[in-house]
């Protein structure tokens, strides 16, 4: 379908020092504070973090659904933050979103055929027969029978089926890049694997690049080439999936990995599991944002904000005292 080229030097998506803030009751919420990321063509980048750490906001800010305070989002060389109106809408068609709640992301009063055809109508494909054919093709690709599905309403489907429909809608315009915002969190465990496999299959078939946002480390490990760990609006660590899971460099990553339950009743949970809640993003701690819960923190962590530094080949951590 699309080009399956070797990873080129130029990343498909480059997020550069992105800052997103919003205002609640006169207070500023620092949702994303200076995040930089590269995603190469054909790569899957997993983005993990606790709830409220800004990972969904980051995903939406990439599409300019939330305005960025500063920083740049370069998609295929075009700065999305500088775009407005029609050019931005055109560019958005190459980037698609898949949401956590598949049922809420389908309009309850529109038929599945219309919902999946909507991107085509917006893109200006006028011929209804052509649209119908494209819709049927993509529905079959995600494992649904077009003849049975097209005339029905979203509430007639299960969560897993709705997620398939959402994936079909995201794929129908043949995009380059898909942001999956916790696509399996709302689904039954038995359905998760199906949807993840479907995403993998579609990635190969349509030559996609994925940003996979999740809080479930097992899911992220299964699908990602590289993983980025986010804490309170900042990146802690970025590295190749296997390497990062085997040898975490940032104390927070290590802590997350320790918190994965082991399927053995005799194994006692580690003692060092994080105490308390993450601090409020309205008043983040000075210096390193993780220092309030970090076992290794000292005066330097409070004074100086750590930058992402290379700790191993292709692995970066934002910590003054990395574990490796």
């Amino acid at each position: 379908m699309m080009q399956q080229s070797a990873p080129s030097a130029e990343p498909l998506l480059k997020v550069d020092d992105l800052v997103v803030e919003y205002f609640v009751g006169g207070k500023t919420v620092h949702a994303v504070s200076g995040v930089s990321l590269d995603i190469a063509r054909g790569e899957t980048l997993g983005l993990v973090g606790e709830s409220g750490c800004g990972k969904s906001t980051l995903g939406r800010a990439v599409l300019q659904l939330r305005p960025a305070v500063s920083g740049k989002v370069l998609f295929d060389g075009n700065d999305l933050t500088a775009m407005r109106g029609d050019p931005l809408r055109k560019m958005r068609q190459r980037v698609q979103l898949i949401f956590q709640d598949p049922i809420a992301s389908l309009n309850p009063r529109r038929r599945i055929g219309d919902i999946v055809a909507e991107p085509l109508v917006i893109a200006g494909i006028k011929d209804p027969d052509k649209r119908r054919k494209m819709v049927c093709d993509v529905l079959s690709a995600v494992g649904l029978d077009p003849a049975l599905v097209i005339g029905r309403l979203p509430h007639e489907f299960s969560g897993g089926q709705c997620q398939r429909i959402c994936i079909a809608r995201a794929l129908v315009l043949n995009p380059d890049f898909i942001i999956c915002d916790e696509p399996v969190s709302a689904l039954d465990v038995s359905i998760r694997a199906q949807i993840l496999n479907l995403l993998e299959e579609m990635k190969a078939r349509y030559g996609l690049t994925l940003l996979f946002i999740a809080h479930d480390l097992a899911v992220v490990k299964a699908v990602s080439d590289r993983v980025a760990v986010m804490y309170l609006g900042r990146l802690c660590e970025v590295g190749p999936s296997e390497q990062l899971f085997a040898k975490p460099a940032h104390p927070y990553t290590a802590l997350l990995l320790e918190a994965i339950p082991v399927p053995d009743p005799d194994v006692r949970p580690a003692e060092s599991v994080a105490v308390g809640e993450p601090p409020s993003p309205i008043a983040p701690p000075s210096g390193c944002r993780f220092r309030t819960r970090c076992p290794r923190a000292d005066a330097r962590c409070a004074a100086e904000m750590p930058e992402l530094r290379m700790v191993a080949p292709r692995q970066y951590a934002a910590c003054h005292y990395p574990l490796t």
Partner: protein
Amino acid sequence: MATLELDLAEEAVSAPVRKGRRFGMLFWAAIGWIVLVCALAIFAGVLPIPDPTAMDMLERRAPYSWEHWLGTDGLGRDEVSRLIYGARISLVVGLCAPMIGLTVGGALGMLAGYFRGRFETLTVGGTDVLLAFPPLILVLAIIAFLGQSIFNLTCILGVLGIPAFMRVARATTLTLSRREFVIAAQALGASHSRILLRELLPNVILPLFAFFLLGVAVTIVVEGSLSFLGLGVPPPISSWGSMIGEGRESLEVAPRLAFLPAVAMFLTVLAFNLVGDTLRAITDPRQGAL
């Protein structure tokens, strides 16, 4: 890349189930009554009934007879034809005034709920002012200034209905525009007008329509009250409210003169409320699934 063990099982999509949507006797009775009243009002001119304004001083307050099915009023005018012509006024005002509220208020509410910001503040503030104003006094003042006519009455009642429709539309839009399908449409590159018309309107229109039917009922009553006070349509045109008002003078001699138009109004208002309620309950897609 790891592949998970579970294979893609073909999910069985069950064959469409025909949903039995039972409306109940009351609903059909209500629909029947509305259709009857509307038909009579529309064809009043061609029906073989006496002129509603033709007076017959010898037949004042005549009882039921073959000539006058429901008798005559205090000026010897045929009660049946006055009721039918009165239905015209009640229905025209009752349907047109909420229509103004529905279109203007609905549009304002959707825009306010979707775009938020200063526009919302202005709209909500404006309608709050309108709501805070005592409506009866406003109607009296404007009628006194512009003169009594059906058109003026409809316009005033319509404008007074705007805040309520605006609030319903805004509240519904507010909750809907946070839903992910709206964000999905934005992410697809849909324009604002497309999101408003294709994604939001189909979801907002039903609660608004149910509210519209309620508005019809309320407006019929308000028009009746105004006519009762002699501020509705000018005589000799009959309206249910003015008929009740005129019948009040002879309550002891001929109570039916006040009672008949009151029953007509009661049944019509009840019918509109019933239909509105049933439609709202039935067109909710999630309830339909149960």
